[in-house]
């Protein structure tokens, strides 16, 4: 295989494409919307009205240590966190994805819960593992980790937590 | 009437024979229980294409002994929140009635050509520990006392799952006691006796044809079997200890010998219930006999009794291997809306026939009238049930 084959398909050239009130990029054949935190809910609502009635997933990414440039459209500032949501339009059998930039200084993001009740669990998970608070979520508590846990394990500055295996009978330090 | 052993005054021999009978009955119930546990595990295993216990003793026969010994030597526990006295009392309350109830079961005796007695040391006696004139009622009384074991065990444990289990147990047993009693009444109606010996005697004339199973028209026997299964808390009515719902139900907090006592009581009750069904509906130890007196009086009746007993033990195991568990409200519905009305109606029908026979009325006409009346009653009942369901749904709809 040549390098060209695995190189990313170049994004559509300017002028920037816009749909559902958000800028659009393409990634591996999938349409990706880039709403800001302010336009996020409006975009998702527009999506829902356009037939994207299934919100299958919400997750977060921590780009703290990312050395690569992200495929973001012009006008969208790269921040440390990103909240990614995936939607399906069952009628058109198509998928679409939104990526919202969430700054480290203020890790909050509007919750999709009022629009898609099914995002309750995934958003709690993102809160638990990344510390991103979702405004409007009914139950913003830890879901996977114990409630008294310190820190958010999936952040890049949170170490793996690997410890040397302690065998039975070995002298403990 | 009554056991001929006690009619000619009470001497040393009579006391000894009675003691012997106590001993034998006690040993028998224990061994039967052990056998029942093994039997159940083996049969279930066979139904599920497995082998079943085979390590403890030959064919795993000593499995129950191993379980019992292990439990006996296990640490006991008294939960902090438990009501100490009652927590200790409950297993005893469960196990004692289970033992006592077996006392009224006629195990043998020649009913074919004789009067159901055997001869021990020159004394004629029944082959049953006791034959009170209210024998069947005695059984019902004992099963009523047996409720306390389950109920108090759950309550005294002081935690939630056992409490739910005991609330279920209470409601379940009280509800099914009614259906049980009504089907017993049908038997009493045709047997004209409350004593178990009398009930067996009344069925002994002709093989199968004179059995109450046939004489009462199968329905009471079926209802007794269903209600009896519920009374025993066995699947599909084992909501009391439904493992998937209530962890262990009433016995969740019990360990060691106290748990073993519940275990024992459960299986002993199963044996007793089967024996009672055999006594009431299948003619107990009666059956065709032949040969010398010892064969007629001792061997063949016992054989018949055990044959019939094992059939019902197998039926109970079969239920466990096949049927899913009912839900609590469905159980109550079955008891109150199906079993009790049916057994009541059937009892009335049987009574009509008896009255018609006694008074010399034409039986078919009386029966037809009775059936018509009962059908009207059933129609009214189903109408009211429908109305109740409609109301309930309307209520639920209003608040959904």
């Amino acid at each position, binding site marked *: *295989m040549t390098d060209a*084959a*695995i190189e*990313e398909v170049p994004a559509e050239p300017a002028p920037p494409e816009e749909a559902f009130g958000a800028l659009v990029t393409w*990634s*591996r054949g999938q349409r990706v919307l880039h709403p800001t935190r302010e336009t996020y809910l409006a975009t998702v609502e527009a999506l829902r009205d356009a037939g994207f009635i*299934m919100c*299958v*997933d919400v997750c977060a*990414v*921590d780009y703290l240590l990312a*050395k*690569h*440039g992200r*495929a973001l459209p012009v006008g969208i500032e790269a921040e440390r966190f990103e909240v*990614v949501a*995936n939607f399906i339009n069952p009628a058109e059998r198509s998928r679409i994805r939104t990526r919202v930039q969430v700054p480290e200084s203020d890790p909050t993001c509007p919750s999709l819960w009022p629009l*898609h*009740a*099914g995002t*309750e*669990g*995934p958003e709690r*998970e993102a809160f638990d593992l990344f510390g991103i*608070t979702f405004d409007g979520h*009914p*139950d*913003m*508590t*830890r*879901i*996977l*980790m*114990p*409630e008294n846990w310190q820190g958010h394990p999936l952040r890049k500055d949170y170490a793996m937590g690997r410890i040397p295996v302690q065998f039975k009978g070995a002298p403990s330090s | 009437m009554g056991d001929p052993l006690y009619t000619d005054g009470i001497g040393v021999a009579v006391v000894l024979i009675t003691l012997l009978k106590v001993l034998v009955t006690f040993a028998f119930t224990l061994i039967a229980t052990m056998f029942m546990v093994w039997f159940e595990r083996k049969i*279930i295993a066979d*139904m599920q*294409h497995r082998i079943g216990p085979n390590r403890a003793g030959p064919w795993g026969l000593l499995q129950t002994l191993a379980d019992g010994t292990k439990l006996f030597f296990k640490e006991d526990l008294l939960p902090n929140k438990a009501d100490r006295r009652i927590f200790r009392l409950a297993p005893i309350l469960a196990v004692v009635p289970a033992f006592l109830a077996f006392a009224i079961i006629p195990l043998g005796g020649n009913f074919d050509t004789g009067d159901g007695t055997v001869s021990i040391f020159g004394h004629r006696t029944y082959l049953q520990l006791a034959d009170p004139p209210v024998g069947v009622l005695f059984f019902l009384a004992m099963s009523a006392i047996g409720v306390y074991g389950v109920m108090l065990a759950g309550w005294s444990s002081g*935690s*939630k799952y056992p409490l*739910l289990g005991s609330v279920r147990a209470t409601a379940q047993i009280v509800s099914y006691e009614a259906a049980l009693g009504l089907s017993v009444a049908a038997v009493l109606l045709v047997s004209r006796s409350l004593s178990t010996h009398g009930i067996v005697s009344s069925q002994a004339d002709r093989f199968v044809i004179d059995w109450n199973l046939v004489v009462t028209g199968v329905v009471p026997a079926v209802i007794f079997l269903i209600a009896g299964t519920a009374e025993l808390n066995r*699947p599909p009515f*084992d*909501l009391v200890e*439904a493992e*998937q*719902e*209530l*962890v262990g139900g009433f016995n969740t907090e019990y360990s060691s010998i106290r748990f073993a006592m519940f275990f024992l009581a459960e299986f002993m009750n199963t044996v007793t219930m089967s024996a009672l069904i055999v006594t009431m509906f299948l003619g107990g130890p009666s059956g065709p006999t032949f040969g010398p007196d010892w064969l007629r009086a001792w061997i063949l009746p016992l054989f018949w009794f055990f044959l019939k007993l094992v059939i019902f033990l197998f039926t109970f195991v079969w239920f466990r291997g*096949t*049927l*899913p*568990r*009912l*839900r*609590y*409200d*469905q159980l109550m519905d079955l008891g109150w809306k199906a079993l009790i009305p049916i057994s009541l109606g059937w009892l009335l029908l049987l009574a009509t026939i008896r009255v018609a026979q006694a008074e010399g009325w034409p039986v078919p006409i009386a029966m037809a009238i009775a059936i018509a009346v009962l059908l009207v009653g059933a129609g009214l009942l189903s109408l009211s049930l429908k109305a109740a369901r409609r109301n309930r749904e309307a209520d*639920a709809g209003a608040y*959904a």
Partner: protein
Amino acid sequence: MTAVETPAETIDYHARLRSGRGVLRMSEVEAAQHGDKLADENDETMLMNMGPQHPSTHGVLRLMLELRGEQVMRSKPILGYLHTGMEKTAEDLTYLQGPTNVTRMDYASPLFNELVFSMAVEELLGIEVPERAQWIRMLMCELNRMSSHLLFQATNGMDIGAVSVMIYGWRDREEMLRLFEKITGLRMNHNYIRPGGVAADLPDGWRDDLLRIFDTLPEHLEDLDTLLTGQPIWRERLQGVGMISTQEALDLGATGPILRSTGYAWDLRRELPYLRYDQVDFDVVVGTFGDCFDRYAIRLNEIRESMKIVYQILEKLPKGDYKALDRKVTPPPRARIDESMEALIHHFKIYTEGFKVPEGEVYVAVESPRGELGCYLVSDGTSKPYRMHIRGPSFVNLQCLPHMMADSLIADTVAIISSVDPIMGEVDR
């Protein structure tokens, strides 16, 4: 300001209990403080804890139930007792090691985890997987779907109290596992589907073994029909229990048999085909009422549909390579290492530092036995994923529990949990 830091006493329990029908808004810590007390002094409800060690919570699911008598007023699933940190671990493993990690998520259908991860990596790499590998993947996944649904039949039967069905389900699944062991080398957690293809070609005699299983399976499924489908108690227990409407299911993000049980024919194999599902003929089984019985029946019939697919695969399975021949991605055959220096180097490179994957992000989903199993993969151009997120169908489906359980009885909760068929390894990851 997060909820965790909020002092517990400032939270109005009652207001939180009341919000949302069927949803108990109460954190575990608060619930623990409530202890054995009644939830509300003026009310007759009581809070009960079900799990995490409870025989019918399918592992370590924990439920807080607010009960009035035996009636469940509100409920809340509490997760995390099996949280394994797999998403974090994945960031530390190369792409080749990835399937080893993800396969342990949904341990009832491990091949789907491997499949979705491999597909995501392939999508990022932009490589073509050989035709035979695609068909083998499909074959294995359908077999896995059957074994997973058999597992469901077993546990569902057990939960409703039909103990024999439990053993029957295991019996048939065991035959399936033995076939898996022959093909992949392992009974579970196979690590068989890898980026670029599958780990090994099908072994000799696999077809006969498969057909032998298929000889007995339909009979055994009919046994289940006799024991369960036609059994009045079974129908009573499941019909009308845990109802959910299509709208609710869509809103809650439910997929798989739960969504299909409401009559909504949504199956990724049909709607957004992957592998070669567009070349096989099968029916999407749907229900009508969205109750536990529909979900049971759907799974039972999906076993039959999968058999249909497998028969077609047996016909159409092409010859060819079982993995991509790109030596930068897939290791060379063992024999080549002894002959070729280049092969040795490739082998060494792949197993020490792994292959590099171009930058980018991708979301790929497959239809697992429990619903849409998705994988969101972010690559920063190195040989390890920058971020891997798995969209576990059980995790999302579990959100339906409080809504299905509202106003049901305790016995129903068991049936409902069972009908959702959650695999906690995938829920907690």
